[in-house]
Every structure is written in structure tokens, then in C-alpha cells.
């Protein structure tokens, strides 16, 4: 298989449970058997509610935490088999952008030092060369170079997020995970950052994993979207299909929630009942069945497989055929 055809990131059957301290065998089933791929220069959206395991999945993909089971193949190499030194070199190629940029920067370090740190860690040339690289990157993200003499507390959220993006991109990664990069930002700033990411992604040929709970934010930037519910992927399809013809009832509920103005409260409220159950005690069968308007006995007992129902469209629902109506 040529490396060009092969996806950049392949995750197979990833499982990660966090044992609850002091409660015997109970565990938070954060990621419960996830398989997905991300192609080169592809943007995959990952959507789900809080606690569904999105962030854990992201951190598994960049090997920031290790899975209980399953494997992650990056650029053809098994991430989990890497040794310390190899892993550190690998770090360059994979980066993470955080939800809250203020927390992602050491409050006691000037921004320039925070930007310098990764370059220094990877021995990227002299200080002057590094400064030059930084200034070039600041230009890319639209930050005035004078700003980096400040401390994080003295800048606005939008500016800091640009800095964090610049810091991530300085190492020229191939794959960047954006963990809700805009959810802590205001609407007017959010659009700026999304535009910036979209722009950079094209210019740097990046593969992105965009995590969000807001489908609307993903529509603009993603190629494909994966919908996650309680540790499992329930639907994965090209972005327009998710919006136009969602098959999983949960996807439709998410859709409705982000388009309240178009769908109306009553209709949105009918698509889903109750609240997400605890990932410690997920319901049997289809995790979504207690909240699903279509649920029947099968759903209660049987875990639906992730079926390929069209080119690039997978869904895990017993009733995907009926749910189109």
C-alpha cells in the first residue's frame, strides 16, 4: 500500500477506561471501542456531548495517554510501540490546541518564552533563527510581534488562541487535534479563529481533528464528521450528509439542538428525551436507547454494529432505515 493512499491516522478498536478510585471494579468507560481514520490533509469533526469521551479519544490519538486496548497507527508506524526518544521526535508531528488558551499557557512565562520552549526542546537552530521563525508564524496567525512580550493574563482570549495555534504550528506538525478550540470564545472571535484554522490548514497541508459539541461550528471546516455517544462512535459521514441526511437519531437530535432557531423548541425537544446517562453505568444494548424515540426491545438488548450504509457513511443504529423519515 502506498503511503499516499494510506490514511495518516488509523485508530483501531481503542478502549480506555478510567478506574474510579476506591470503588472496586467500577470505571468510567471513556472510550469503548473506537475505530476511525483520518486522511492526509483531511479535517475530521468529532462531535458529542460533554463526557462522551471526545477529549479522551483525542488524547489517545496523540499518545498523550495510552489506551487499555487497541492500536494507533500514525503514518504507518505503531505509536504505542515507540520508544522514548522516538516518541519525542514524533511529538513534532502531532500537536494539540486547547479549549481554554489561558490555561494552556504558563501564567508565569512571557508569551515569547512559551513560544520559544518547543523550539528549544527540539533544538531548532539558534535563538535568532527561532525568533525569526516565531515572527514569521506570528504573521501567519495575525498577531502583532510586540504582543509576545506580554504575559498571558494581559491578552484577550482571541489573541491567546492565536498564540497557542502559532506555538503548535511552529513545529510543523502533520496532524493537529483541536479540542473545542472556539467554545470558550465569543461569537465574533470564534468566527475569526475558525477562519484562521481553515486558512492555515490549507496552507500547511494539515490533517485536523476538530472536536466540538456544536455541529454548526464543524460545518464550515470539516470534511467528515464523527458523532460520538458514550464512548462509541454512532455515526460517521461526510459533513453535508450529517446535516442533510443524518441517519442516527442522536445525530438528528444534535442537529436540531444547534439549529434551534430553524427547528423550534418543541420539535427539538421531541427528538431526544432525558439526559446522557453516566459513563460509569452505560445502558445495555444501544447506549442511546433510553433517550431514543425509536427504541424497541432490540435496542435494549443488542449493541448495534457500526454499519457502512453508503460510501463514507457509517452508522450504528438498528433503525437507521426508518429514521430517515
Amino acid at each position, binding site marked *: 500500500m502506498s503511503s499516499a493512499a494510506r490514511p495518516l491516522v488509523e485508530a483501531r478498536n481503542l478502549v480506555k477506561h478510567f478506574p474510579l*478510585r*476506591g*470503588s*472496586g471494579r467500577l470505571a468510567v468507560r471513556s472510550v469503548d471501542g473506537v475505530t476511525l481514520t483520518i486522511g492526509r490533509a483531511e479535517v475530521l469533526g468529532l462531535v458529542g456531548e460533554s463526557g462522551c469521551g471526545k477529549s479522551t479519544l483525542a488524547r489517545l490519538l496523540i499518545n498523550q495517554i495510552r489506551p487499555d486496548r487497541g492500536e494507533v497507527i500514525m503514518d504507518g508506524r505503531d505509536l504505542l510501540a515507540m520508544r522514548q526518544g522516538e516518541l519525542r521526535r514524533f511529538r513534532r508531528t502531532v500537536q494539540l490546541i486547547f479549549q481554554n488558551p489561558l490555561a494552556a499557557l504558563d501564567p508565569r512565562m512571557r508569551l515569547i518564552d512559551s513560544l520559544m520552549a518547543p523550539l528549544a526542546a527540539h533544538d531548532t537552530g539558534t535563538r535568532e533563527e527561532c525568533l525569526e521563525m516565531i515572527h514569521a508564524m506570528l504573521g501567519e496567525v495575525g498577531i502583532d510581534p510586540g504582543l509576545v512580550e506580554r504575559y498571558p493574563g494581559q491578552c484577550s482570549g482571541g489573541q491567546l488562541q492565536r498564540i497557542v495555534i502559532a506555538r503548535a504550528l511552529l513545529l510543523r506538525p502533520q496532524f493537529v487535534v483541536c479540542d473545542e478550540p472556539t467554545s470558550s470564545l465569543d461569537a465574533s472571535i470564534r468566527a475569526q479563529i475558525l477562519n484562521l484554522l481553515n486558512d492555515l490548514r490549507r496552507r500547511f497541508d494539515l490533517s485536523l481533528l476538530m472536536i466540538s459539541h456544536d455541529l454548526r461550528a464543524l460545518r464550515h471546516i470539516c470534511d467528515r464528521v464523527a458523532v460520538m455517544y458514550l464512548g462509541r462512535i454512532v455515526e460517521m459521514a461526510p459533513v453535508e450528509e450529517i446535516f442533510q441526511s443524518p441517519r442516527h437519531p442522536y445525530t438528528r437530535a444534535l442537529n436540531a439542538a444547534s439549529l434551534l432557531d430553524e427547528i423550534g423548541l418543541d420539535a427539538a425537544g421531541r427528538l431526544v428525551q432525558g439526559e446522557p446517562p453516566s459513563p460509569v453505568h452505560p445502558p445495555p444494548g444501544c447506549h442511546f436507547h433510553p433517550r431514543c424515540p425509536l427504541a424497541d426491545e432490540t435496542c435494549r438488548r443488542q449493541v448495534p454494529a457500526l454499519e457502512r450504509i453508503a460510501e463514507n457513511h457509517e452508522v450504528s443504529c438498528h433503525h437507521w432505515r426508518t429514521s430517515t423519515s
Partner: protein
Amino acid sequence: MERFLLKRAIVLVVTLTLVSFLAFLVPWLGDTDPARAIIRSRVADLALDSAAVEALRIRLGLDQPLLHQFFAWLGRVFQGDLGLSFTSRLPVADQILRAIGVSATLALSALLLALAIALPVGTLAAVHQGRRFDGIVTFIAQGFVSIPEYWLAPVLVLLFAVELGWLPSAGWSGFETLILPAAVLCLRPLAYFSQVMRASMIDVLHANYILAARSRGLGLAGALVRHGLRNGIQPVLTVFALWLAGLLGGSVVVEVIFAIPGMGRLIYSAVINNDMPMLQGSIICIVGLAIIINTAADVLYGVLNPTVTVSGDAR
């Protein structure tokens, strides 16, 4: 809950066994000869008869191998027999039990007094955070922490017993004898409690549920009483337990100065007299009590704070 208590019980037993081994080694680590020490306590003749010393050594089993002695000793300890004091040849356990009762009374009086003052003062300081009252309270608290009790106690005796004649100068026989020592002893915990209470009440004051309660029509005082105190007092209780465990043996200076027959004084005199069985017993009792009190505090914490489930692992 049962799991938690069971786990703590295991911790207690394991710790006590370890500690008792250390305690058992105490006389061997020091250079005290138990047989000599016992005889000296009975016969004030300075020239000891070495034959008598040897005979006593054999009678006490001190000629046996160390480990053999340890297990024999441990067996007795677990039956509650801590041996006889070198100096008085009376059972150590009885003396410790009596002393702990006294120390507990003293410590509880001082700590409850401190608590009674610290709760309102800390709360008021929190309400007035950053203003003059708060500054004064904090300064006084730091002052209290900086007063050595071995200085304050004699000064108070000089003032209240010798000059004014209001209170007894020393002793342990009733409420009046408790006042001065408790007052001296309460200053430092008072300072700590009020500072912890202040910090915790500042958090409470900024807590959203207070805002919510006020939005329902409760006044500030009402909201603090109904929703603030219960939450604000929890960190104070942790500190309270620490102090209680600490003061059971730690009020040495005050007990010595006021001639109070408590644990601190018992340990002090044991040290002075090289009374090894008394020291061994004291170590074991103090460690055991510290664990029990901390466990009790954790349980109480769980009762007060429903978000903490007291389970096998309490943090």
C-alpha cells in the same frame, strides 16, 4: 462506609505493629539498662549491687534474644499490658489511660473554646474581607501564633493567681483549675481556626449557592447561617481533628507549668527518668489515637459533606 472503616482498621493495626516494633527498640537504641533503671528507681543507693542487677535482668527476660523478647512483649501489648513503669513499678496502661482522660479534657476545652471564638470571628473577618476588622483579626491571629506558651503561662499565673488572686495557679481539680491552661492552650488553635474559617468563609461568600439563596430572598446573614456555616466549617473540622490529636500529647509545656497530670507531662517525666516502658506505651497510644481521631474526622466530614462519599479511599 464499612469498607472504609475496615481499611482504616487495617491501617491502624499495621501502623501500630510497626510503631510498636520501633517503640520496642527504643531502650536498645538508647543506652539505658532497664534492670539498672528499675533498681535505681527503687533503691536510691548510688552504688548498685551488680549481682542484683544481673538477677533482675534474668527475671525480666532481658537475657533472651531480641526477637524473642519482642514477640513476648508484643503479645502482652495486644492484651493491653504495657508493662510496669521503671520508676513507679505501676502498670503503664493505667497511668496512660488516666493521663489521656486528663489531656483529652484539657485539649477539648481549649479547642472548643477556640472554636467557639474562631467561628464567629472568622466569619466576620470573611464578611469584612480586606477591611480594617479583617486586618486586625489577622494580625492578632499571627500574634497569638507567635506567643510562646511557656512565656504566657507564667505571666498569666503571675497576673491572675499571684496578683489578682482570681484563679488557682496550678493543679487539676475542677473547673477553676482548667481555665488558665485552657486559655493559654487555646490561643494558637484559635488563630489557626479563625484563619481557616476566614478563608473557607470567603470561598463560601463567593460561592454561587449563596448568591442563589439570596436571590430567593434570604438576607446575607440568613444565607450564611442556612447555607454558609455548614459548608464553611468543614475545613475547620479537619484542622480541629489535627489539633486534637496533636494536643493529646503535645501540650507538654502547659501541662508541666500548670502541674496537670496529662499525657504531655507523663511523657516528659518518662523522658527525664528514662522510663522506657512508659515511653513505649505513650508512643503506641499517641499513634493509635492519632489514627482513630483522623478516621473519626473523616467520617464526620462525610456526614457533613454529602459530596464526599466515605469509601475505601478518603482524601
